[in-house]
């Protein structure tokens, strides 16, 4: 058996309690014939015994008290955040209603610019988007924060967010035909979205993102 490469490796395995029966026998046989390895083994065991038997130490006096005094103060804000983190459903509901009845709600109603997905040949008059007579919009049209009046035609879907579709000025017999869906002024689907809930939900989600970002910074 090679002393350095094998015997010493087995000694360490022995000390870590990982020696198999067969290896143990081989090590024992070698130690019986090799004085140098015997010394090595003895020194190893002695060194670890010395290290192990050093007396245990105790932490300094008042150690616990010092740690407790140096802990970050349990802040009001922090426990509030912790409460919210632990009760996501209650929080979601609360935030939703707070936003519903507070600033967000009025923000929704005020300062909303009329936007429209297409500009060509359209008129915008005081929050009303008008498709003038004789004009045909080809493709889908989206109006946000305004009403839509179609005097001409739209060849596609109409989406109105936070607004209504309003009838054009009555034009004699044609107005009767307007009731007839086959003769409506747009060819595709009409979707009206009262987006306030989505709007509030968007802010609720925003709040949550910040809440948890704040928590993980602690």
């Amino acid at each position, binding site marked *: 058996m090679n002393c350095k490469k094998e015997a010493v490796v087995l000694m360490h395995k022995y000390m870590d309690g990982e020696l198999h029966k067969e290896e143990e026998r081989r090590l024992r046989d070698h130690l019986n014939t090799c004085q140098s390895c015997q010394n*090595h083994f003895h020194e190893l065991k002695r060194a670890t015994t010395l290290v192990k038997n050093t007396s245990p130490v105790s932490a300094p006096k008042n150690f616990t008290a010092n740690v407790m005094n140096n802990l970050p103060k349990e802040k009001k804000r922090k426990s509030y955040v912790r409460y919210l983190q632990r009760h996501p459903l209650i929080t979601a509901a609360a935030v939703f209603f707070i936003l519903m009845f507070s600033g967000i709600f009025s923000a929704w109603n005020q300062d909303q610019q009329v936007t429209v997905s297409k500009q060509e040949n359209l008129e915008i008059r005081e929050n009303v988007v008008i498709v003038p007579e004789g004009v045909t919009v080809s493709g889908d049209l989206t109006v946000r924060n305004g009403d839509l009046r179609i005097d001409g035609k739209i060849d596609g879907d109409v989406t109105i967010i936070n607004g209504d579709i309003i009838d054009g000025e009555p034009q004699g017999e044609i107005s009767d035909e307007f009731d007839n869906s086959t003769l409506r002024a747009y060819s595709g689907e009409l979707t009206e979205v009262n987006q306030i809930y989505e709007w509030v939900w968007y802010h609720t989600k925003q709040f949550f993102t910040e809440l948890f970002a704040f928590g993980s910074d602690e």
Partner: protein
Amino acid sequence: MESMIKQKIKEVKKGDQSAFEDIVTFYQNKVYHICLRMIGNAYEAEDLAQEAFIRAYTNIHTFDERRKFSTWLYRIATNLTIDRIRKKKPDYHLDAEVKGTDGLDMYSQMAADQALPEEEVESLELQTYIHKEILALPPKYRSVIVLRYLDELSLQEIAEVLEIPVGTVKTRVHRGREALRKRLRHV
């Protein structure tokens, strides 16, 4: 005992700061001991051990309760201490350190034929010498030796504390032991 600690951790997570006191009381000696044997200076060891507990407290919500708390806590303590050692000193070289004979002379004189009386092993002087030899080990060997022989952790636990593979732990324990063997053979 683990279940008492688990309960306390739950209370701390719920925001009860005072529950942390029992955790500190229970682990303070172990954590302080690890820091002291690795850093070698009582003042710094106290500072590091305190910092370890404070970090454990502020990060308690990241502790996975299915794991062993002591492993997690020791990891914080050893990481802090290893960082501190790195900032203090350049690099250690195991061979250079092992070959060094500083402080050995006095002890080599009492070596060999003159066996040490039992109480001598417990003498303060010898203890100080042994601790000095542990401290002379490069930090990566020192940390495994401290955890293995002063805290009697298994190789697997050491691997978890230091977040290194068990194979690496074995190699380091092996080399650390060889280094100590050479340094303590004359004691």
